[in-house]
């Protein structure tokens, strides 16, 4: 059970090989295949679970898998308005539109960029020594009009499914610098970030020739985006919060959420959408999908439960924001792990994520930097906890496969080393490149808004609107 997105690309290449083989007498195929390396064979077995592709002339669409993947694609997009509501409810009244627009702008901007460049840069064959991918046939998705992937879904579905991940990732960063950035600067920043930070990391971790995908016998485990989505955005969020500085008046003035009702609805939409995010990342509709969905549900509940209990002990009251944060912490932590852990692992990861994220937010308050909506505190910390701690809960069959591939033994500690390498590289790359991008955008178009604009609020100063009609009598 390597990360399915990766497996998918690998299987695509395999399919080509298989097609070539078909020229030879079909009876000899089995024998021919034995000449392939053992790992490749195992992979083929894993990919072609149904065994249907062997004799078939063409890879055909499987309507069940395709419908689930279409559903998942829609579910992941639903997370973006969910995030807009989650973040939008947490800021002050004067910034509600500006904050929700950060998520919607990602939907719009990355929605254009991804089919144009993003998909080619992420899932094309590696260029520049594997730094990014590129394949001109993916430019504007021109070459995939007829492609059915070996997972029996049209490649359009895969490209769009991956596109939703590319959309939500930069939108997550916005939580760190909420209430104080220029809309134009933000738009340019996320466009550059998506190309220069997201696509390379996505390529390393999920493309079949990505170096993190091929680290260790079964690769660095990142089922649905622990490193690619959550650590990359979380670390960037921290760098951005530190670089741009605190909001005026933070932390002396209280900055209350304007609408926790909306935040809760947003958290609910995120939870629902996450089933597409994780279970869809199996790029299948089978046992793997069921496993991913089950552990996703369990981890989210475990995270929220743990957060609630901590708050009950610390303050005697369980807050709604605490429950929402716990849900997110659990979901973030299970994201990399959804393909390899069992329900016990999901409970543990959810609880661990809630504890560490809670501590991280307490530490943030102590240190005084202004990660306004805790983008790093939840996504960065939760992602790191998930990507590392999952090692201790991997199902035995996965470890046995890894041991076989490694030629005898493969220990938890060795896999932890692989995980730590992937996490470390993601942190280093995302933080350094993001800092450069932030600097460039700040010095050219400007990212931090003026004090007057900040005080009158993003809604008015950036968009010429008001979030709520209530304050205007006319």
């Amino acid at each position, binding site marked *: 059970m390597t990360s399915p997105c990766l497996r998918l690309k690998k299987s695509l290449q395999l399919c080509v090989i298989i097609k070539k083989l078909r020229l030879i007498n079909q009876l000899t195929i089995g024998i021919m295949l034995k000449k392939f390396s053992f790992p490749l064979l195992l992979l083929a077995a894993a990919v072609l679970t149904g065994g249907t592709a062997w004799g078939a002339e063409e890879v055909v669409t499987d309507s069940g898998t395709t419908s689930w993947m279409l559903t998942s694609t829609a579910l992941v997009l639903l997370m973006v308005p969910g995030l807009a509501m989650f973040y939008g409810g947490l800021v002050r009244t004067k910034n509600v539109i500006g904050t929700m627009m950060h998520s919607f702008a990602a939907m719009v901007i990355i929605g254009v960029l991804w089919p144009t460049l993003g998909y080619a840069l992420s899932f094309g064959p590696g260029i520049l020594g594997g730094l990014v991918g590129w394949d001109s046939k993916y430019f504007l998705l021109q070459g995939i009009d007829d492609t059915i992937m070996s997972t029996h879904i049209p490649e359009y579905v895969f490209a769009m499914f991956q596109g939703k991940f590319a959309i939500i990732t930069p939108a997550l960063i916005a939580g760190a610098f909420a209430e104080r950035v220029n809309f134009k600067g933000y738009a340019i920043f996320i466009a550059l970030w998506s190309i220069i930070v997201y696509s390379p990391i996505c390529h390393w971790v999920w493309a079949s020739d990505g170096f993190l995908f091929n680290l260790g016998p079964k690769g660095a485990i990142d089922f649905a985006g622990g490193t690619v989505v959550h650590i990359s955005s979380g670390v960037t969020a921290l760098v951005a919060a530190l670089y741009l500085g605190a909001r005026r008046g933070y932390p002396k003035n209280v900055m209350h959420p304007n609408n926790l009702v909306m935040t809760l609805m947003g958290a609910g939409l995120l939870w629902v959408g996450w089933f597409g995010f994780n279970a869809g990342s199996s790029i299948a509709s089978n046992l793997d999908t069921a496993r991913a969905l089950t552990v996703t549900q369990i981890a989210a509940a475990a995270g929220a439960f743990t957060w609630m209990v901590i708050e009950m002990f610390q303050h005697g009251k369980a807050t709604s924001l605490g429950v929402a944060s716990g849900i997110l912490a659990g979901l973030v932590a299970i994201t990399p792990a959804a393909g390899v852990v069992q329900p016990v692992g999901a409970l543990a990861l959810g609880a661990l994520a809630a504890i560490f994220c809670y501590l991280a937010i307490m530490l943030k308050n102590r240190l005084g930097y202004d990660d306004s909506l805790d983008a790093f505190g939840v996504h960065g910390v939760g992602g790191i906890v998930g990507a590392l701690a999952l090692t201790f809960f991997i199902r035995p069959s996965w470890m046995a496969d890894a041991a076989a591939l490694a030629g005898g033994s493969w220990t938890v500690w060795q896999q932890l080393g692989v995980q730590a390498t992937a996490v470390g590289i993601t942190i280093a790359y995302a933080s350094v490149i993001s800092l450069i991008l932030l600097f460039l955008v700040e010095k050219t178009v400007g990212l931090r808004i003026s004090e007057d604009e900040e005080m*009158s609020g993003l809604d008015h100063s950036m968009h010429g609107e008001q979030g709520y009609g209530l*304050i*205007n*009598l*006319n």
Partner: protein
Amino acid sequence: MKLITAIIQPDRLDHVREALIQADITRITVSRVTGHGRQEDIEIYRGQRIAPNLIPKVRLDIAVNDEFVNITVDTIIEKAKHGTGEVGDGKIFITPLEECIRIRTREKGGKAI
């Protein structure tokens, strides 16, 4: 005793409050109001530029003993201004206050403020 009512721009509220607290004026009532002075505010609605005739403002009500009137008024004026002053920065009204009663203790007059 005087009742000071100030109508200011919403984006100056934090500045004014911080300065009032520095000057030891900590008892204050704040409300969102809309109103209309000489200022025109342009909003955009689906591409059309609209000048709404009522503009969001913040209203401060502060009851003070006479010796605090000047410091309160000066603080508000200093902090509510945009730069050297713009149309729309607001107004201050001062009215005599006949009586002030603390509900909890029934105390009356200056010591109840």
